[in-house]
């Protein structure tokens, strides 16, 4: 199988779906001729034609409203929001329209749309190119929220998202577009070249939404992570010497509750890691679920490692980012019975 970066894997997913389903089309700011600011749609307009992959006005609300109307008609539009930070002008469309259309119309209309957005920090993008808004979407009933951590999953999850009849927010951790990132920013960047999960089939396959992956088996503590933080957590586990089980959630809605409960019930300890700010972050929901379902198996309090409760700070990127050092500390804390 060819080795692909996450960018190439996402491009391959879109290419496969454009070739396979004439009702799939994609659009967004700079996605057409230019191929997107991160090159995810590179070559697709040339290969599949102008009307299958085209540029839009700088109008996130307009992009999503248009996608919903197309979805209601019967197409499967894939809209790109250039950065997840810019999705807020479309928030009303996502919350009040896409998420509820099926429910409020008793199934007469629905919005099978996929909204792709590069997200997360670690690239010195400052406040407006670094945020992790997944908890905002997880809170909205009716939306799915997917966050891949490697090229293989990225392609399979994106195809599954496009084929889903529910609206999907597909958040692409931009720090790991071109290589896994373990949080050691002082070290040389890696590419995906030698990574097992960079072996990506050329053709069609899916990774189902709502199925977590066990990245590393372990006996003493369960670590829950997604996106870039899967790699940070994996590195921290190695450094800590603790026999931790690492679960990559892959989608937070739908959430693989069975995988979480089965692991924490076994290990009796849980550390939750995400880039987003801690307060009311998705880790709060995970922590509550673990408490509700695994309380009598827990040997110590659940630990959360997250971004600080500040806006994403530019010069303090690595003070803010929940890197391996903080994850190691949390692993040690959770092991103190």
């Amino acid at each position, binding site marked *: 199988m060819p080795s692909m970066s996450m960018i190439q894997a996402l491009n391959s997913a879109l290419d496969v779906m454009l070739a396979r389903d004439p009702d799939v*089309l994609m659009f967004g700011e700079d996605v057409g001729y230019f191929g997107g600011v991160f090159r995810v749609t590179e070559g697709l307009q040339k290969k599949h034609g102008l*009307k299958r992959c085209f540029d*839009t*006005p700088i*109008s996130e*609300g*307009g992009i999503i*409203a*248009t*996608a*919903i*109307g*197309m*979805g*209601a*008609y*019967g*197409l499967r*539009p894939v809209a790109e929001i250039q950065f997840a930070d810019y999705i807020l*002008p479309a928030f*009303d*469309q996502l919350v*009040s*329209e896409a998420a*509820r*259309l*099926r*429910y*409020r*119309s*008793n*199934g*007469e*209309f*629905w919005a099978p749309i996929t909204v792709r957005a590069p997200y997360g920090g670690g690239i010195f993008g400052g406040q407006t190119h670094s945020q992790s808004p997944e908890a905002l979407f997880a809170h909205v*009933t*009716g939306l*799915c929220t997917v966050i891949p951590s490697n090229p293989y999953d990225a392609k399979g999850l994106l195809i599954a998202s496009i084929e*889903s*009849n*529910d609206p999907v927010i597909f958040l692409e951790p931009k720090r790991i577009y071109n290589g896994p990132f373990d949080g050691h920013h002082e070290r040389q960047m890696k590419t995906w070249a030698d990574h097992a999960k960079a072996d990506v089939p050329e053709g069609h396959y899916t990774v189902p939404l*709502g199925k977590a992956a066990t990245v590393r088996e372990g006996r003493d503590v369960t670590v829950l992570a997604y996106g870039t933080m899967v790699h940070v957590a994996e590195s921290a586990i190695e450094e800590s010497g603790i026999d931790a089980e690492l679960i990559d959630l892959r989608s937070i*809605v*739908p*959430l693989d*509750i069975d995988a979480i409960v089965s692991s924490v019930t076994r290990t009796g300890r849980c550390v939750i890691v995400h880039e987003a700010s801690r307060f009311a972050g998705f880790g709060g929901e995970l922590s509550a679920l673990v408490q509700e379902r695994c309380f009598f198996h827990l040997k110590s309090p659940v630990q959360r490692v997250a971004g600080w409760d500040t806006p994403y700070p530019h010069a303090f990127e690595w003070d803010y980012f929940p890197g391996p050092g903080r994850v190691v500390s949390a692993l040690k804390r959770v092991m103190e019975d």
Partner: protein
Amino acid sequence: MTDGLTLYIPEPPTRPGDTPDFSHLEIPAAGAMPRPPTDAPAETLRDMAYGLVRVLDDAGQAVGPWAPGLSPEQLRQGLSAMMLTRLFEDRMFRSHRQGKTSFFMKSTGEEAIGAAQSMVLDRRDMCFPTYRVLSWLMARDYPLIDLVNQIFSNARDPLKGRQLPILYSARDYGFYSLSGNLGSRFGHAVGWAMASAYKNDDSLALAYIGEGSTAEGDFHEALTFASVYHAPVILCITNNQWAISSYAGIAGADETTFAAKAAGYGLPGLRVDGNDFLAVWAATQWAVARARANLGATLIEFFTYRAAGHSTSDDPGRYRPADEAAGWPLGDPVARLKQHLIAIGEWDEARHTQFESELVERVRAAAKEGEAVGTLGKSKPPVSEMFEGVFEKPDWRVREQREELGV
């Protein structure tokens, strides 16, 4: 030294206690506006946004180049839809006062718009409505009992008790799902129209927005996309002068017309007498012909007047003269179409009275049938319906919570 800048806050010409005054409105004579060819370039149509397309004159005659030449049967069908809308809404408004539902809104004075457009548009087209175009459904013979059941949120509510009264959805009638958020479906119509063009289909979209909601970003986003991609969509502003208590000037009406907003997007903008069934019909037919010829979108401002309150929660006597509706210079759409039918010898007072009593009876029968099923709180769909349709397939949260509630 000057005295400094001053902030301007617009105010309507009259308030409660004042004599209604519409002298600031320029109302051109019926038949005065030219009818340009439907393929005329948008930049040649600028004047259309500042005049007023009118067909019915004060004597009830159809005059001028926009007269659509409808058959008596079409005219009577339109009158029927408008009368039925008004009678039905009056009945349901009373039902609200009797505690049979939580909420209701009337479209009194605006019935011509939905009725005529529903008749001009084809069954394959899709309307993206506001909550004030019930006449669209009436013109297509949507079953009254389904409306009543939805309004009462009873066991036979077609939307299963999930939606506020009157926020209908009726796909088979070309009527998209309503929402209480203003303006948020305007762009869906553009997306629908773009999808139709993408598929080389011939389905058009038609969307409504109130003049107040033209201030929302949704309006401008939709016009931008409609313009950029030449979407086959008819974008309609129902300018009924009032957004709850805010007069149209708060949405910019004192500075320009709403139809004139089209020019900035390179789209044709028509300004039309919304209380004139024939003018609504003709303008819609013009925009439909243009869209079906792949010439893109048209913005139409329907100049009308919201004769009733905003909703059952509103008392317009607190912010406008009580008798303002009676003084509206464009009259009442039902009365004007009736007058026209009489003027051409196709209707008379006796037939009208007889027909009205038949409609009253139809409405009464539907209301009684709905009441027999049950009114709000006395009957409702199975509680399990609360958990259906959140996702295509329920996830564990829905399954667990349904079990927790025991449904």
